[in-house]
């Protein structure tokens, strides 16, 4: 087993024991993710995308196979605070202002006050929420909350970012804008990003590698390496190359559904 990459999964399986029998959320998943890659996970609902991210984050224990994160076990990686995680729902603490919510992981890590302030200002700006730092979460619309939770993960400034459908609740214009921002950030900082999405164009636009999954049991059915350049203006989405990759992803996805 190589340990060079950021993530290395070998025959990874995870079965949930539930009241009406076992649920095979992940089954024999093999995947390598190198430093600086931007990997999208796409697949129908319930195919194990969230579960895979949770295994990386040491929030679930695999029931079979092996996985290494930065060459360590997930637990060691978690203790080393190796990653930032953006959940599928915003999950902000309602008794803290946006600022304080972003400060929370920094407080826990013991980052100094002045640095906290600095980082908060930077990430708020990044997600276009400058000026909203003193508001409480319930004073913001759903989309703004989601952006705040992204800011919180960015403030953490880990080398590995796990993002579970971060842009699901946003409208297309905002989404396009944040996609651009995220790409810029990734380009600048050379972070490794694992990104779950339901949108094929989004996956193709962002990724260096697209992992297509299918459910029951959760498997990786295809891994597509993107041939798009690192520099990606928004209108790259109308190029034939883009449409070609999108088509391949769509085909892979369709195979996992019962339609047609």
């Amino acid at each position: 087993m190589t340990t060079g990459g950021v993530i290395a999964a070998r025959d990874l399986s995870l079965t949930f024991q539930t009241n009406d029998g076992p649920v095979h959320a992940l089954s024999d998943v093999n995947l390598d993710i190198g430093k600086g890659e931007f990997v999208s996970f796409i697949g129908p609902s319930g195919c194990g995308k969230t579960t895979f991210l949770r295994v990386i984050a040491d929030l679930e224990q695999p029931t079979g196979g092996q996985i290494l994160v930065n060459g360590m076990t997930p637990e060691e990686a978690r203790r080393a605070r190796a990653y930032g995680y953006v959940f599928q729902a915003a999950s902000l603490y309602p008794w803290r202002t946006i600022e304080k919510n972003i400060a929370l992981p920094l407080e826990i890590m013991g980052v100094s006050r002045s640095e906290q302030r600095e980082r908060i200002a930077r990430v708020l700006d990044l997600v276009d929420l400058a000026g909203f730092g003193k508001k409480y979460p319930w004073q913001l619309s759903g989309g703004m909350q989601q952006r705040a939770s992204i800011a919180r993960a960015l403030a953490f400034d880990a080398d590995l970012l796990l993002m579970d459908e971060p842009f699901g609740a946003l409208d297309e214009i905002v989404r396009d804008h944040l996609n651009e921002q995220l790409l810029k950030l990734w380009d600048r900082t050379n972070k490794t990003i694992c990104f779950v999405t339901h949108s094929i164009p989004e996956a193709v636009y962002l990724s260096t590698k697209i992992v297509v999954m299918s459910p029951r049991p959760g498997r990786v059915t295809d891994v597509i390496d993107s041939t798009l350049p690192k520099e990606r203006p928004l209108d790259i989405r109308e190029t034939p190359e883009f449409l070609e990759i999108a088509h391949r992803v769509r085909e892979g996805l369709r195979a996992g559904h019962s339609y047609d």
Partner: protein
Amino acid sequence: MSAVAPIAGRRPSLVARAWNGTALPVTIVVLIIVAVWYVAAVFMNAPQEYDKAGRAGQTLTVSDLVTRTMAQERPVLPAPHQVVVELWDTTINKNITSKRSLVYHAWVTLSATLAGFAIGTVLGVGLAVFIVHNTAADRSLMPWIIASQTIPILAIAPMIIVVLYNIGLSGLLPKALISTYLSFFPVVVGMVKGLRSPDSMQLDLMRTWNASAAQTFWKLRWPSSMPYLFTSMKVAVAISLVGAIVGELPTGAVAGLGARLLAGSYYGQTIQIWSALFMAAGLAATLVALVGVAHSMVLRRMGQAE
């Protein structure tokens, strides 16, 4: 911002605002209750008057009956004004340090209530923290905490007092401990629920940051449990008062609202019972309201107020 002119909303009329507040509805309901009460007082006190008149060989007119049933010395149901007069006499018209002042007795009970409430809340929160962090405690403690509340406290209070005296505790503390016994329960139940109220996602988030148990507690569990804490404290403070009153009986019932209730009961002084009862309920309502004020203050500081 937009240039749209603000909609000229009509200010609700005074009547409408009073109708939609609480003061007017409460007043009207109280008035209805008082009216029903007066009628009930006539009917419930009438047999005694008939009996008395019968033995004296008189017959009663309706107006006689009404006036007499409202001025009995030991009525079955005192008329509202009798209770009000008694309350007035024993609060405003007495020096508050006098043993005949209801304020004095209320203070005696209140001090035990507050002590019991404070100990009960601390104990309840402590137990809840223990239960939430220790599986064995969770499994084994809860059924017995429930069972403890099915024990009639009035029955074992005398033994508790005697045992406590034996280990050197007397005065305020034994009474306070009986009130603790009653008040810790709602706090445990509420706080266990409250400390467990963060959803699994919020807990997972803490895990991803590798937060310690203490950090998770102080930054997540504790703030999330605040609404539960205050709601159970409202129940607990009212129960504390009942506990303090119960605790006064086996200590010789020398002072306090419990002593008043008992003395009133012993001498058949219904009016005195009712005024002590109202004092107790009023005290409880005040305490509950105070906890409510503290609640909204904390909520405001946490940015949760309306």
